[in-house]
């Protein structure tokens, strides 16, 4: 990211703030910054979401394509994640500079969505062994203001919620190959159930405490972070440690509890807002980046 230079006094100030549960911007250790989100704003996609978490800006587009299923799972569709760190976020991401970070994020997402109870991939199968839907989830990181993983996971969940998969009717021709008829009607579409989709919660360790939704300055002061993928029911589907510091076993257990309670709440609020947005229906004015 763009160079962040913090003096020792600034670092000490952040450390003391965290100790007293009153961070630089007034938040407690478990509070998240304001989130602004809008779905269905990119026209060539089946589902999309633009999410802004304070200064972190993410744009996700979901495209559905018909392809052959993997031989190991002929009765299931697939979901694939691709992350692109735009140079808009930082000159360091020019060319292939952001590829490492992007690969990290897509791997974590793939692992957190790998559990079979999360998405019903069997619904995406059309003709077993021959044709299935593949969901290409493409994430574009436009600005980094701390807490990248969490913002990306929320945007992905919202984009999947808004995804409209076209209806396919299979007609069997006598003696020939079954024919697939893709409906052109934008109103006849199936939705993907994200009732069990997880949200990533990263906790950065500053001093002896873990804080959620760290700002870039706080990230600079933290020695290591723990990333938890939490489903709405409070189950963990992926855990990852980021950074060079180390944790005691008890710290990890405490962090897991904190992450699960935050994750369940975030999932709940996110779903509430998505449903609210859905209810606005046609009356909703699409703003995108214009405001």
């Amino acid at each position, binding site marked *: 990211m763009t160079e962040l230079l913090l003096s020792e006094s600034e670092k000490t100030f952040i450390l003391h703030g965290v100790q007293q549960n009153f961070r630089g911007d007034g938040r407690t250790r478990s509070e998240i910054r304001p989130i602004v989100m809008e779905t269905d704003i990119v026209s060539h996609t089946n589902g999309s979401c633009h999410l802004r978490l304070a200064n972190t800006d993410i744009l996700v587009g979901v495209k559905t394509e018909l392809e052959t299923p993997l031989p190991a799972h002929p009765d299931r569709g697939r979901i694939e994640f691709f992350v*692109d760190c735009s*140079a808009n976020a930082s*000159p360091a991401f020019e060319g292939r500079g952001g590829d490492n970070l992007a690969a990290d994020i897509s791997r974590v997402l793939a692992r957190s969505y790998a559990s079979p109870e999360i998405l019903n991939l069997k619904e995406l199968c059309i003709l077993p062994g021959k044709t299935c839907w593949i969901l290409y989830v*493409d994430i574009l990181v436009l600005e980094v203001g701390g807490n990248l993983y969490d913002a990306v996971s929320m945007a992905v969940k919202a984009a999947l919620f808004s995804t409209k998969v076209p209806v396919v009717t299979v007609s069997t021709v006598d003696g020939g190959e079954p024919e697939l008829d893709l409906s052109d009607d934008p109103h006849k579409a199936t939705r993907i159930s994200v009732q069990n989709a997880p949200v990533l919660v990263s906790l950065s360790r500053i001093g002896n405490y873990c804080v959620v939704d760290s700002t870039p300055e706080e990230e600079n002061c933290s020695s290591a972070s723990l990333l938890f993928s939490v489903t709405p029911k409070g189950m963990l589907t992926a855990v990852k440690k980021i950074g060079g510091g180390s944790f005691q076993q008890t710290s990890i257990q405490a962090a897991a509890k904190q992450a699960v309670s935050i994750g369940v709440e975030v999932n709940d609020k996110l779903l509430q807002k998505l449903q609210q947005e859905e209810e606005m229906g046609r009356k909703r004015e699409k703003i995108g980046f*214009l405001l």
Partner: protein
Amino acid sequence: VLRMAGYELLSDQGLRLDGRKPDELRQIKTRLGVFGQADGSAYIEQGNTKVLAAVYGPHDMRESRLRPNAEKVVVNCQYSMAVFSTGERKRRPRGDKKSLEMSQHLKQTFEATIKTELYPRSQIDIFVEVLQADGGNYCACVNAATLALVDAGIPLKDYVTACTASLMLGTPLVDISNLEATTGGPELTLAAHPRSGQIVLMEMSHRFHIDHLPEVLDVALEGCKNIYTILDKAVRRHVSNRGASIGWDKE
């Protein structure tokens, strides 16, 4: 009336596929200062084409691959398209030949526009990201980058605006959409300094007779001047909004 695969590219009433007249630009919406971290940033929508531009600089040269120039600033551009920006999903956002060529075109355009002699031994980065591609991608990038440079406060000789033009059955069309570009005829892309009329970049695909070139060029140049009027208004509105919030009008 020219018909192609069931579409009427130019109807009997002289209207195009999206209802525009041949000399009408698509609707332009802009916003300056979209991101806080970049030195300058802007967002532009031209019809359904949406582009984000960010400018970093001037700053000292970080990379060794670009050699510092003792007389002028080095302009470094990157053209990137979001993987979901086109109808068919793209495999890679950048790094392919088309994107590299576009990056070079942007570099050429802005080297001619920025007052490069003011920042020797330094570098200015211009990064454009196409969020939705519906024709005139390069032009939207140039227009967005001009706004981003203005937002960054980098001195320019003039605005640089870009516009496409085409020829359909003897009628020149301005600001081509993707559908018109793929099913229609030639496409002329022009980047110019609107106030002086100086052309900074010109590129043409397909072919038409050289006799028609002046009128298509005229239409494109006119398009560039009209876009300049729109962008100028947007910049003034943005500056007056910013100024009003810190009390400039309270003299």
